[in-house]
């Protein structure tokens, strides 16, 4: 990517076929604290990113900033690409996590299933403590 220098600013020309506008926004956002950033587009549809220094910088330091911006562009492009590829998996994971927070009806259904299991339990092992002792208490009262 070519970079053109002026007195206190430097321009980076971005090929839109290689870098999306999203990547440009992401990289620009990362540099907001270090420089004033201006975006434009030329007749070839190339994105023109002008980085204007906030503090006094030497020409070399301006060059370094432009280089770092180009690296940031690459980083955000990769991040966007990974995000696109992982989108379905992320939606699935979030969906599963939300399903875990179910309303009360789901619990009633489970208890119905449990009761079915108890009915098949001849030795009475699966019967809850409360149910088992509740029956015995009623028996004692009736004898008295």
């Amino acid at each position: 990517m070519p970079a053109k220098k002026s007195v206190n600013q430097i321009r980076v020309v971005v090929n839109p076929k290689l870098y999306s506008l999203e990547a440009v926004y992401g990289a620009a956002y990362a540099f907001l604290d270090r420089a004033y950033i201006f975006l434009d587009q030329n007749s070839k549809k190339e994105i023109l990113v002008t980085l204007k220094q906030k503090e006094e910088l030497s020409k070399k330091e301006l060059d370094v900033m432009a280089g770092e911006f180009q690296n940031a562009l690459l980083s955000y492009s990769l991040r966007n690409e990974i995000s696109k590829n992982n989108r379905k998996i992320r939606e699935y994971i979030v969906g599963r996590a939300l399903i875990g927070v179910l309303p009360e009806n789901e619990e009633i259904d489970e208890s119905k299933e449990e009761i079915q299991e108890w009915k098949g339990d001849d030795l009475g092992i699966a019967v809850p403590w409360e149910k088992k002792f509740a029956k015995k208490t009623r028996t004692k009262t009736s004898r008295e």
Partner: protein
Amino acid sequence: MYPLKAIQKTMAAYRHLSTCVFSEKGRYYCVNMTRIHKDVERVIVDEFCNYVLSLIKE
């Protein structure tokens, strides 16, 4: 390059620093600033552009 909504939100945020008038000229949106606060007149244009960019990302 700059979404209209972000520009409008920035104009609203900067109304205490200057009077902003919006217009369109060809492919560009123009924001004309008048009655700029003395403390910020050197940097307001640059800061305005950065603010718009920050809103795009958000």
